[in-house]
């Protein structure tokens, strides 16, 4: 196994290693010589420099760029935070100083003392922070009286402010102190320990624009390390501001409509891809992450079954349920397997081999055509269609819409969803695809997964005869004077090449879902504007027993996709309510509310008027049935 050294080769190598050793000794001697030069010959000069020295570099952090909504409303900002510090070796009478400070700040003396003592482990000329986040009045008082109260110092530093609390928290993200891992990565080679940077959301993905360039002051200090004067200064370059495509008002309306359920909603302009609302609930408070997170709060976030820290609009992947029938229908039309008049007789179930595939409506829908099947979300119609199409053909059409790959909306870690094919199954499991597996796929179950962004893009694609613009969240990057540095223009990423009349037939079905009697999406109906949409209820687990006793985690997801106005589409909406059970009952009303707010702010709908017409109760939603 091993090549033994031939005698001569071995001696040669030993000679060379000997030479290398000598070279190493010489190099070490050079290092030693250099040390001798610095620490002996040049030592007096350098000692003097270090003693009189005084030159010290104080980094001045650049102020971080702000985040704005599409209309220029400030979403995230910076405010100065003042803290009071003492320099221990300049204080003459500690006890009386603490008494005074305690009285002024109304903080217990023992608390100040314990902070002082904790800080004493370090050098005595180093300031110890006694109170952070003190008010402006206090700051001014201390500045004025700094001579009388020897040894105190007021420090100013900008802190990130999220004035709207949990508003759009997943989208905006939060900042935090740089971690060891980040410090050692070249991406952050210009950062120092203790710096803050974006950790998630826009704050993270657009860090390079938001951060700015830190400046600094070279100052002269006395032997005790106190500031004397500024020698030179390089001004920090403030970070650039990000103008989002988000509409602040619509975003809050969307969040309000979702409530405290585990849910996500995406609203997108169909003709530009600009995302107007990007909501994931429940939210969290980003300001907690940049300060000190109270442990109980952190624990509560982690234990919450609704996963408040997860951006469901970006990373949530759900079986699309019946919303996927849009794709199946288009595939059937394009392949010439159905037209508007083709009917299927639904008696509540479909027999394939030995398996029974149930329609959600066990009584059956009778004879239905495409429009009827869409309206009432008949599963059997799509079983029949799906069986004839086969999984690979369905997948091909799904992929035309960009399903199964991330849409690259601008945030990191966007999920890609999943579209199964027979080839995939063969590779992954070494088994061939069974027809019985195609039927669930044709109604959006099985291995299919979609993100809320993809749901919105699919809906936009149908609305625009196949034009899909890249969904994006950032409109512009602005410099500190508000001038545009970079603009993100609409980018057409897909043109789904199908006949306009096929899109029209599907759109008619979608309109029927919302606007016709027996439509499953009646809860999204607006009387001033015609809405089109599709409900979806996707199974989380198979073979559930009775409805009432299903535990929260096993309940079905409720979905709804929509666009409006029907005749001249402007926006697409996707709503997912995790474990919301019925698309028609849980998700459709949310979409309706969001669309109402959208058209109210456009002046199309007069504000305040509610949808009072209750003559048609929304159906309880569509159910999906799987084979057994």
């Amino acid at each position, binding site marked *: *196994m*091993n*090549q*033994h*050294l*031939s005698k001569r*080769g*071995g001696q*040669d*190598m*030993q000679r*060379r*290693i000997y030479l*290398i*050793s000598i070279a*190493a*000794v010489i*190099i*070490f001697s*050079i*290092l*030693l010589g*250099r*040390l001798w030069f*610095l*620490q*002996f010959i*040049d*030592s007096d*000069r*350098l*000692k003097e*420099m*270090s*003693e009189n*020295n005084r*030159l010290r*570099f104080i980094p001045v952090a650049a102020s971080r760029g702000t985040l704005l909504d599409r209309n220029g409303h400030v979403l995230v900002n910076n405010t100065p935070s003042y803290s009071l510090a003492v320099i221990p070796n300049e204080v003459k009478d500690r006890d009386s100083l603490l008494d005074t400070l305690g009285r002024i700040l109304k903080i217990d003396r023992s608390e100040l003392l314990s902070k002082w003592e904790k800080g004493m482990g*370090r*050098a005595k*000329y*180093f300031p110890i922070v006694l109170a952070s986040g003190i008010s402006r009045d206090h700051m001014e008082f201390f500045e004025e009286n700094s001579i009388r109260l020897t040894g105190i110092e007021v420090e100013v530093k900008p802190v990130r402010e999220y004035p709207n609390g949990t508003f759009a928290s997943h989208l905006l993200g939060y900042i935090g102190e740089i971690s*060891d*891992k980040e410090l050692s*990565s*070249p*991406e952050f*080679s*210009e950062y*120092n*320990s203790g710096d803050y940077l974006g950790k998630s959301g826009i704050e993270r*993905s657009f*860090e*390079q624009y938001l951060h700015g360039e830190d400046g*600094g002051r*070279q100052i002269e*200090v006395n032997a005790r390390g106190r500031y004397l004067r500024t020698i*030179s200064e390089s001004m920090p370059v403030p970070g650039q501001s990000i103008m989002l495509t988000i509409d602040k008002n619509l975003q809050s309306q969307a969040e309000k409509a979702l409530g405290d359920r585990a849910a996500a909603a995406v609203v997108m302009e169909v003709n530009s891809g600009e995302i107007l609302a990007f909501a994931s609930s429940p939210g969290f408070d980003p300001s907690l992450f940049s300060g*000190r997170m109270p442990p109980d709060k952190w624990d509560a976030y982690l234990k919450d079954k609704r996963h408040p820290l997860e951006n469901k609009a970006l990373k949530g992947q759900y079986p699309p349920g019946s919303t996927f029938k849009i794709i199946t229908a288009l595939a059937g039309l394009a392949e010439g397997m159905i037209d508007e008049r083709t009917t299927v007789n639904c008696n509540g179930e479909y027999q394939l081999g030995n398996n029974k595939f149930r329609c959600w409506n066990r009584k059956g829908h009778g004879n239905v055509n495409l429009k009827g099947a869409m309206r009432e979300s008949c599963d059997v119609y799509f079983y029949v269609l799906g069986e004839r199409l086969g999984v690979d053909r369905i997948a091909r059409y799904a992929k035309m819409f960009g399903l199964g790959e991330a849409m690259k909306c601008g945030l*990191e870690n966007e999920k890609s969803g999943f579209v199964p094919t027979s080839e995939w199954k063969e590779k992954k499991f070494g088994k061939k695809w069974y027809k019985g597996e195609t039927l669930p796929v044709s109604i959006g179950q099985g291995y299919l997964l979609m993100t809320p962004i993809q749901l919105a893009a699919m809906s936009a694609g149908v609305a625009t005869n196949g034009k899909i613009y890249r969904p994006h969240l950032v409109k512009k990057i602005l410099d500190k004077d508000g001038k545009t540095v970079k603009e993100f223009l609409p980018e057409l990423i897909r043109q789904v090449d199908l006949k306009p009349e096929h899109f029209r037939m599907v759109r008619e079905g979608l309109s029927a879902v919302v606007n016709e009697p027996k439509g499953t999406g009646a809860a999204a109906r607006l009387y001033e504007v015609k809405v089109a949409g599709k409900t979806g209820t996707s199974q989380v687990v198979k073979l559930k027993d009775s409805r009432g006793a299903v535990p929260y985690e096993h309940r079905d997801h409720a979905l709804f996709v929509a666009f409006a106005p029907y005749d001249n589409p402007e926006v697409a909406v996707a709503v997912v309510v995790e474990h919301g059970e019925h698309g028609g009952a849980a998700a459709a009303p949310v979409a309706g509310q969001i669309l109402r707010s959208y058209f109210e702010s456009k002046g199309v709908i007069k504000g305040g008027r509610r949808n009072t017409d209750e003559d048609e109760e929304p159906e309880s939603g569509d159910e999906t049935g799987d084979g057994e």
Partner: protein
Amino acid sequence: MIDRRLFTNFDWKMLLLVLLISAVGVLNIYSASASYNTAGIPYALKQFYWIIIGLGLLLFTCSIDYHLLEDVSYWFYGILIVFLLLVLLVGKTSMGATRWLHLGFFTMQPSEPMKIVIIITFARFFSRHQPVSGMGFREVVLPMAILSVPAILIMKQPDLGTATMVCLVAGTIILAVGIKWRVVITMLLAAVPACYVSWHYLLRAYQKNRVLNFLNPERDPLKSGYHLIQSKIAVGSGGLSGKGFLHGTQSQLRFLPEQHTDFAFSVFAEEWGFWVCAMMLFLYAALILWGLHVASRCNDRFGTLLAVGVTAMIFWHIVINMGMVIGLFPVVGVPLPFFSYGGTSMITSMLGAGLLLNVSMRRFMF
């Protein structure tokens, strides 16, 4: 399986050297981070934990006969190349550079293990290829190819420090194997246009700045140049006997950048002075010479080259880091082995030491 001779042959002297340097390192990190205001575990304690983990890996490394590495060396090499490619292709970050690869359950930085894997790969390659009187042009082609693939991939990330390190280590092994003078001279001549190309196409702006600032520290006295000046002041003002533990003004007043990691030695030099620094240099020199001694007394070519490579890796880290601290080299982010704070560096160094011990204690096996 465990031969008793292994235990009696265990190289306690080398382990002792490593532990001594690491212990001084922890002490120094304590002082270097004394002025930090950190919540959580202090750096010195974290470093202590890293040493313990490193020692575990060291013992594990020497418990496996290094000859087994010979069989798997090309596999290691291939896998790491794939990882390096993946880093460039999918290692996600939209801006700046990317070194980290997310493997689902954990993240890794494949350029770091590449330092050790290039050693194993070269040792294996040259254990089968023995140019009789030094490598000529023809013999040098294949090893250069083996080296340049990872070197270029790492440079692309971009991680200049690690890429340089990989090349220096491989170069040292080539010197040990033997190479003809005319090849060396030709390659040095070829380096001139190569430098030109990398300056214009491969180096990022911040890397260019570092080189320029080294050549002329006054160019940017506030930032990169400032580090160099302050580090020199720190080292020089320590004088012969130093300012005393925890009493270095340069470090405690925080004139120094990154003083617990890359500039840890300048804190040490300021507080302990020339004589102690000289002892420290002596310890490092002893470690290097001992490593080379282990190499030359090893009976098989693979083990010899393995030991040469690992020793070279530790050696070049020492030289580049110290050279930077005392103003001989530009500021490149290279840690001082066993001494600077940092888990990655500690683990690589300990793994290297484990390989050396491994070669050392199995010298009588044949």
